[in-house]
């Protein structure tokens, strides 16, 4: 069983990403959407948290949400793959269940 966790809040504002990383198990994925994409950006004070979990988890960020916020695809950390809405749908299909860590 594998779970797709979505995170839609900025990790600077809310504890959603922290909780998500605490409960997401090996082989699961985390998709950053909406204000959650700030958590995927390289060069912030929070990068360590993602790096630490990078071996266990796969990270994705929604491209349209990055672009809306003035963030290019190159602005995300190396461990994060950028997807569009189609890719979001594929991720939902590929995992056994989705959990929105609101």
């Amino acid at each position: 069983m594998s779970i797709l966790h979505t995170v839609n809040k900025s990790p600077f504002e809310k504890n959603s990403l922290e909780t998500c990383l605490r409960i997401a198990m090996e082989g699961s994925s985390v998709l950053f959407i909406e204000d959650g994409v700030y958590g995927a950006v390289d060069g912030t004070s929070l990068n360590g948290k993602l790096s630490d979990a990078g071996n266990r988890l796969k990270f994705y960020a929604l491209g349209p949400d990055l672009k809306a916020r003035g963030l290019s695809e190159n602005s995300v950390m190396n461990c994060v793959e950028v997807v569009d809405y189609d890719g979001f749908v594929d991720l939902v299909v590929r995992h056994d269940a989705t959990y929105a860590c609101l």
Partner: protein
Amino acid sequence: MKLSVVLNEGPYQHQAADTAYNFTRAALAKGHEIFRVFFYHDGVNNGTRLTTPPQDDRDIVNRWSQLAEEHDLDLVVCIAAAQRRGIVDEDEQKRHGKDANNIAKGFRISGLGQLIEAGIQSDRVVVFGD
């Protein structure tokens, strides 16, 4: 694959209303079936036909109505949440003695059981919220 979408927040205030729509549209375009879109909490506010967004902005409610018509979508507004927030169809109008209703085209008001049923019948349920 059979998917259901749950939307917990109202239009414009939270991007959740936009993301749920963009996701649903993408899923349909990829050939998936959307078993149901369930509107809960403030999400019920997506189902009012009384909005008049600025002309240079998207029309969130109407967009759902159109998508429902094109793809025969089942847009269900939770009755208990709708009563608290003032989303009313003709039946509810009569039942509660209200002098107007505001439900938008393509939406229907029904019970929370529809959310559970969506969970049972769908291969995946995706939640959008605050």
